[in-house]
């Protein structure tokens, strides 16, 4: 009797500990959201979003950083989404599940997903800038330094490598939700494999490709380490082109908090910028979560 009560208390205590752990995590997330949102909400104005920084970045807005972030994720998506989608198509439609090549690709994709983002930065520097860029300069510009230095293009491509696994995993999941029946129906009508993929499988997984793109964009918008030395700029008075360095939200936060001479003075802008970045990734992730939830529901039906 007493024994069983004791057992019960122990059970409740243990279940309670696990519950408290879950709650602590939820509280951490809520506190982070609240602190940053409350700290930055006064800056969520049209003016803040659309004007240039002024007075040595202690006043003004973040327009160039927003602009740079947008360009970065667009170019990144143009590179990462098609390549990621095609890789996912290979893995689900062409490769045999247990073939060595499929296993190797899957291992490579998972490795890409865990390589620290700073390594991508190093790779971008060593490969895109110092190898590809330098060779372009040597071949077309007579060695004049044009592409062999950090810029928007190289930063975006570096970022696209980082987000490639995100796209691959999402699209693969979506491709798997297209029923095998439909592939069979198409093939039985005399369609070739490629026709089947193009006309039946891909249209059926558009939402998955969307999810992958959104997640990739969200990731790319928030990562800073890969672009620290492949293109991000401290401050620019003009809007960038492909071969220019550029301002970007995440790096802007880093610069304002740790590298500016008067950290206290820029505090409101720091909170404002962080709040904008957080809202951006938050919204993107939310929509991805919802989209994916729908896809999974469709699959289970």
């Amino acid at each position, binding site marked *: 009797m007493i024994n069983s009560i004791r057992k019960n208390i122990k059970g409740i205590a243990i279940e309670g500990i696990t519950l408290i752990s879950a709650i602590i995590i939820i509280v951490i997330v809520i506190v982070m959201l609240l602190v940053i949102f409350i700290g930055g909400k006064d800056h969520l104005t049209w003016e803040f979003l659309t004007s240039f920084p002024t007075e040595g970045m202690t006043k003004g807005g973040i327009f160039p950083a927003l602009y740079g972030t947008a360009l970065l994720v667009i170019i990144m998506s143009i590179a990462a989404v098609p390549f990621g989608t095609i890789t996912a198509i290979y893995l689900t439609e062409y490769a045999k599940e247990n073939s060595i090549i499929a296993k190797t690709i899957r291992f490579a994709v998972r490795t890409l997903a865990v390589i620290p983002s700073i390594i991508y930065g190093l790779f971008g520097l060593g490969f895109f800038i110092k190898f590809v860029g330098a060779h372009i300069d040597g071949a077309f510009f007579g060695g004049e330094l044009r592409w062999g230095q950090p810029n928007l293009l190289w930063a975006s491509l570096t970022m696209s490598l980082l987000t490639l696994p995100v796209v691959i995993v999402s699209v693969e999941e979506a491709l798997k939700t297209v029923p095998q029946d439909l592939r*069979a*129906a*198409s093939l039985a009508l*005399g*369609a070739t494999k490629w026709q089947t993929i193009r006309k039946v499988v891909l*249209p059926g997984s558009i939402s998955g490709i969307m999810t992958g793109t959104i997640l990739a964009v969200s990731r790319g918008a928030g990562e800073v380490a890969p672009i620290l030395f492949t293109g991000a700029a401290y401050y620019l008075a003009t809007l960038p082109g492909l071969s220019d360095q550029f301002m970007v939200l995440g790096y802007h936060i880093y610069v304002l908090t740790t590298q500016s001479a008067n950290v206290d003075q820029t505090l409101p802008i720091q909170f404002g910028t962080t709040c904008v970045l957080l809202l951006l990734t938050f919204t993107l992730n939310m929509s991805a979560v919802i989209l994916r939830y729908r896809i999974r529901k469709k699959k289970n039906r």
Partner: protein
Amino acid sequence: MILDKIHTEKMFLYYSEKVALKDISIKIPEKRVTAFIGPSGCGKSTFLRSLNRMNDLIDGVKIEGKVMIDNINIYDKNIDVVNLRKKVGMVFQKSNPFAKSIYENIAYGPKINGINDKKQLEEIVETALKNAAIWDEVKDRLGDSALGLSGGQQQRLCIARTLAVNPEIVLMDEPASALDPLSTSKIEELIVQLKEHYTIVIVTHNMQQAARISDNTAFFYLGELIEYDKTKTIFTNPSKKQTEDYITGRFG
């Protein structure tokens, strides 16, 4: 004279080294309905799917012996499987319309064959839907999603989709097993009408159905073709004990 559209000789099918079909030799006549019956797992569906090489999609399936269609061995290494499937269409157990409009579902096959003329496509769609006896029900909403149709309508749509490719043989894998009695009888009527132009091979669980619609019936058991004869003979005077046991409901 009735020609043999399909015939197999000493055909074996292995699934990862395990024998799934043993020594199947059968002659299936042109423009007739031939039914395959037998308990589940007896290999009748597997056999059906090997007639348009849908089994190619499954890893580890190996086939020995001859599978002849119009006197051509379809497992010959030079065979164009894509074209074979245009010639030998298939309707599946579970209706599987694409998530497209009714019109696009039917036009899918012709478009793949390179027909892009709008008028011609419309004609094909209409004929196919009429032939599948579903035209009257859908003619006013060809642009609607095919997924909005009822189960029976979806299955007839899938038949129409198959017909639109203009096959010579239509393979049907328990096409009515998931349907209500009314839809089933519509499909059965349809099958009887279709044999005027197509050679039909149908797998069914339902012995009454086989008796009602088929000209010939083959009884499969444990991967073997036990008996094959005129439907009437099979159901009234089977020559093998196993066949009799099955049709009288002693097992299955």
